[in-house]
């Protein structure tokens, strides 16, 4: 292998590959938006998110990349939730783009309205983004979201999924994973934490609408996330991106571990990364180094009870979630392919 003539060496190697945010040895085109001093910093310093907030990070990643794709002509509608509260205690705001907040569940509808208004005024170079947390998106906003998908409104909707209602004190949402402790799924009784077998997949629901683009991303893989944002911005019509954003407060993880938790979620198979166009999966991001589910769970106090005697079936159920994702989304590369 190492004797391959250089002309046949297909992979350029830049010290750390392309896994870091930037790297001085890379061409500009191969660096991320976040590596640039010219990034928009659409979500600026001074916001009130907790230490190590995955959502604050994910939101800056997404909006900066979308701004670049839209030549800075972007309007954002925001659902109620942490992302709204910690950025914009009226009349102060950490956002550096036109941004509107209306109700908890109507961000998709507000986005659709902005898009319709722009069209009515003949403005075709301003793009629309709507965003919210998992509560505002998958529970309260589900009707508005489905309608926006159904009408194929020209809105890029981004859900920052931290798997519970964090802003109001960590209550269960329909994206809370099985067995997880929240304020409303306490560690008590024979089935502590969230009920097994629950937790819906909004990306799959979005796909069922047959909209142009659906994808999942994670804050631990910036290159992957930015590519998906850029791809989404190439389409017109309804698009949906779900970003996995650990919440140190709600999950009981260390603030410094936010990216590690996200990394282990994907590398264990607990959160699959994929893309779909017009209802069909077009690509999955393969697991690079497979990690045991337990390693992911052990970083979070919300899962501490599954390691207690008597709760073995919960641990096993979570492992099965990962197995099913790996099977369903084909997350492990064939060894022949990876060679």
């Amino acid at each position, binding site marked *: 292998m190492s004797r391959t003539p250089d002309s046949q060496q297909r992979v350029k190697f830049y010290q750390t590959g392309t*896994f870091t945010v930037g790297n001085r040895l890379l061409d500009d085109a191969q660096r991320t938006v*976040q590596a640039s001093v010219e990034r928009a910093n659409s979500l600026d310093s001074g916001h009130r998110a907790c230490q*190590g907030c995955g959502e604050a990070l994910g939101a800056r990643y997404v909006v900066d990349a979308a701004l670049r794709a839209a030549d800075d002509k972007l309007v954002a509608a925001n659902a109620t939730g942490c992302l709204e509260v910690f950025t914009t205690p009226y009349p102060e705001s950490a956002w550096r783009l036109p941004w509107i907040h209306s109700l908890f569940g109507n961000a998709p509808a507000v986005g659709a309205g902005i898009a319709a208004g722009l069209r009515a005024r003949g403005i075709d170079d301003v793009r629309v983004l709507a965003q919210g947390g998992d509560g505002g998106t998958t529970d309260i906003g589900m009707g508005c979201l489905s309608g926006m998908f159904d009408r194929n409104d020209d809105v890029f909707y981004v859900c920052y999924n931290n798997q519970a209602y964090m802003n109001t004190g960590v209550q269960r949402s329909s994206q809370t994973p099985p067995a997880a402790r929240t304020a409303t799924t306490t560690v008590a009784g024979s089935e502590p934490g969230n009920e097994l077998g629950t937790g819906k997949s909004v990306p799959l629901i979005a796909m069922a609408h047959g909209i142009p683009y659906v994808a999942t991303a994670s804050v631990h893989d910036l290159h992957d996330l930015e590519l998906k944002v850029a791809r989404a911005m190439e389409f017109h019509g309804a698009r949906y991106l779900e970003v996995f954003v650990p919440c140190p407060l709600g999950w009981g993880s260390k603030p410094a571990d936010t*990216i590690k938790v996200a990394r282990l979620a994907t590398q264990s198979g607990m959160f699959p990364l994929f893309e779909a166009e017009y209802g069909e999966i077009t690509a999955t991001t393969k697991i690079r180094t497979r990690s045991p589910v337990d390693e992911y769970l052990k970083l979070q106090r919300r899962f501490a009870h599954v390691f207690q005697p008597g709760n073995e079936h919960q641990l096993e159920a979570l492992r099965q979630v990962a197995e099913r994702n790996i099977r369903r989304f084909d997350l492990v590369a064939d060894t022949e392919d990876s060679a």
Partner: protein
Amino acid sequence: MSEDIATKPFAVSLDVGGSLLNKTGSWRSERPVYVDRLPPCNHACPAGEDIQGWLYHAEEGDYRAAWEALIANNPLPAIMGRACYHPCQDACNRAQLDQAVNIHAVERFLGDLALAEQWPAPIPGSPSGKRVLVIGAGPSGLSAAYHLARLGHAVEIHEAGPLPGGMMRFGIPRYRLPREVVDGEVRRIVDMGVKLHLDSRVDDIPALLEAGRFDACFVAIGAHVAKRVDIPGRDAARIVDAVSFLRDMETGDAPLQLGRRVVVYGGGNTAVDVARTAKRLGAEPVIVYRRGREQAPAHDFEIDEALEEGVVVNWLRTITETDEQGFKIEKMELDENGWPQPTGEFETIEADSLVLALGQNVDQGILTNLPGVALNSSGVVEVGNDMATAYPGVFAGGDMVPAERTVTVAVGHGKKAARNIDAFLRGETYTPPPKPEIAVYDLLNTWYYSDAEQKVQPVLDAARRTTTFDEVLSGLDASNALFEARRCLSCGNCFECDNCYGICPDNAITKLGPGRRFEFKYDYCKGCGMCAAECPCGAILMTPEST
């Protein structure tokens, strides 16, 4: 603000504005700081090279800058890129990921490029008016001369032999170290204005110091006197010592009549060098060593290369006597302490000659008229941490002082001595800068390093290895050297990957631009520690806030 709260709309307590008014830095209990930790390669290098530092430039393809950073510590990179046993690579953190960075090969690439391009040594410092005598033009003496010249001192080297290089020429065979490489790197030092006197043996240091008006002296005459062993019935004509054998190979002085079958006695690198040289002269060498391969001081790869070339090794044997036909050999076995004990079983090896490669002693003639300076019980000269002998103004290093006897250690001694001599000449004491914490593997976040196999140096085919003195190991070409340099993990030292800048949820890091790294905005940093956790190379430290 509070006085005009009544003028604000209901439930609004803030002025209209951006979030920058909110200094979230006040939340912090720990602050991140950028640090430069000591990479394990640098820590392991006996010559004190800043390996990570020069690889940093090589990664960019700026080989001139890389070479200049390299020779700041080591004036002989083309030689060391061949002769060094690269303890840096044994310490390399990358070995725990896939394989160590082939530092040695990149060093050689840079050294060879500098010779080919005739890059000059750095311009010497402004003249100090001080004169320093260096005795011995081996790696230690040359290194000292180079560093002293850079510090502005006038240096004269007195070398007893007919050619410079010491053991680099008279110990290491040319198939491992071509002579034009030695000549090229020595010439570069001489071109700095260092005076080199060959065939100039020094017997009385104080007299020469006086006569030459020298202010200080560095002695590095090495260890050239072969150790002997009593073998009953030996026929002196058929026994030669390794040092003389290898020296004669260079000078061409004596006809080397080894005969067909040669026994080499010893298990060190010199024994292996002799056997491989004899093989190239057409003989059939057999190495005899009293202990096993595990205990042999020769490096594993050298033994492997010798075996590949057809050298035969008899482990656990001692030579007890000689007769007309050959040598009587006794089998040994190791006791529980790993020492060989005789078994009483004997065998005979038919051979025409015997080369003793049992180690070398220091020639103590040099110590004449140096009161207080003598060989210790191990046969070497004691020096302090500053490389100074007991005689004021006389320093010593290399093989003649207690240390591992390698080219790299010798080069390191030369540098260390030069710094101390420089301080001595100014009436000061040299204090080495404090060493930072070592960047151990656990401080790295290796997720960010992609897989990359080590580039292997091409090896000469076996047929040419046993019939010629052509160099066995070739160098890397430019693209391979670049790839190899980029395999460096940059342990403990920022390489501007932008990770901290990218992953801060609070946008609390300023990117200062190429070569200038980053800066924290402590007004907004909440102290979450994500930057430290996700720094690939362990260059960020979280430290408690004082208040």
